């Protein structure tokens, strides 16, 4: 179950980003390498659990499978409350 440790680390990094660039979190994208030793469904489940609570407010996890052993927080999507031009 080290997927839960990874999901918590995603939460920590996202919080860091949100403190610098506030807004309502919409989605969180994580890159998962095929050889990263991570079960993607399990990680998605853990991310959903972590992101369900404030300050994340039900943001959607997006997992991107890639070759190799990459494991990184790729990007966030944030609604900053402004209106589209």
């Amino acid at each position: 179950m080290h997927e839960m440790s990874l999901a918590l680390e995603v939460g920590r990094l996202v919080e860091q980003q949100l403190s610098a660039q506030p807004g309502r979190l919409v989605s969180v994208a994580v890159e998962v390498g095929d050889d990263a030793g991570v079960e993607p469904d399990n990680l998605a489940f853990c991310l959903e659990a972590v992101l369900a609570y404030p300050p994340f407010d039900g943001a959607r996890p997006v997992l991107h499978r890639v070759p190799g052993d990459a494991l990184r927080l790729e990007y966030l999507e944030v609604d900053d409350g402004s209106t589209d031009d």
Partner: protein
Amino acid sequence: MAVRTIEVRERLMAKNDELAGEVRRTLDAAGVPAFNLVSSPGSGKTSLLERTLDRLGKELRIAIITGDVQTQNDADRLARRTDRLVQAVVTGGACHLDALQVLTALDAIDLNSTDLLFVENVGNLVCPASWDLGELAKIVVFSVTEGEDKPLKYPKMFRQARYAVLNKIDLLPYLQFDVDRAVGFAREVNPELEFFMTSSLTGEGMDAWFSFLRRQARASIPA
């Protein structure tokens, strides 16, 4: 609404790796080689360490950090074989040790009077492969009761390890375990892997293991 994309591209293991670097610098400065023992549950890590303390405990100042999901049983077993402190880390459900836990455990160890450090990781051949603890090398322990294809089933762990201990070889007469096949599978995954064949019960093969540890302890003495 205006949804912005914030590019991050930060490695999830970056924080752990930073802490592992701190562990490594601390150990290097003190001249202490550290080995991270990893295996599935029941392969004999604790027995291997008991036998090692029995033989080398007077000759080398050996420190041990044990990791278990629950109980301090391994630490208690090892503490009976040494006067030195055995640091127990109970992970409370987590399937691996991380670098912060090792860094914290090091606080209680007098590294200036330590020749060798073992970290006995949580029994698990999957998760501990992903976590650098600041060790000099990972040593993967597997036993002849586990099947020859362990290295093929858990390739990441065998790739990450620099050394392998094939334990419980006293049981070979009673099992259909092909040692050459197991070593072949392991080398298929990691051609550089250096092997020790041991029985912690009878002591067979342990002399090569002890000699290796003596060499490692000597090699790490700062000039």
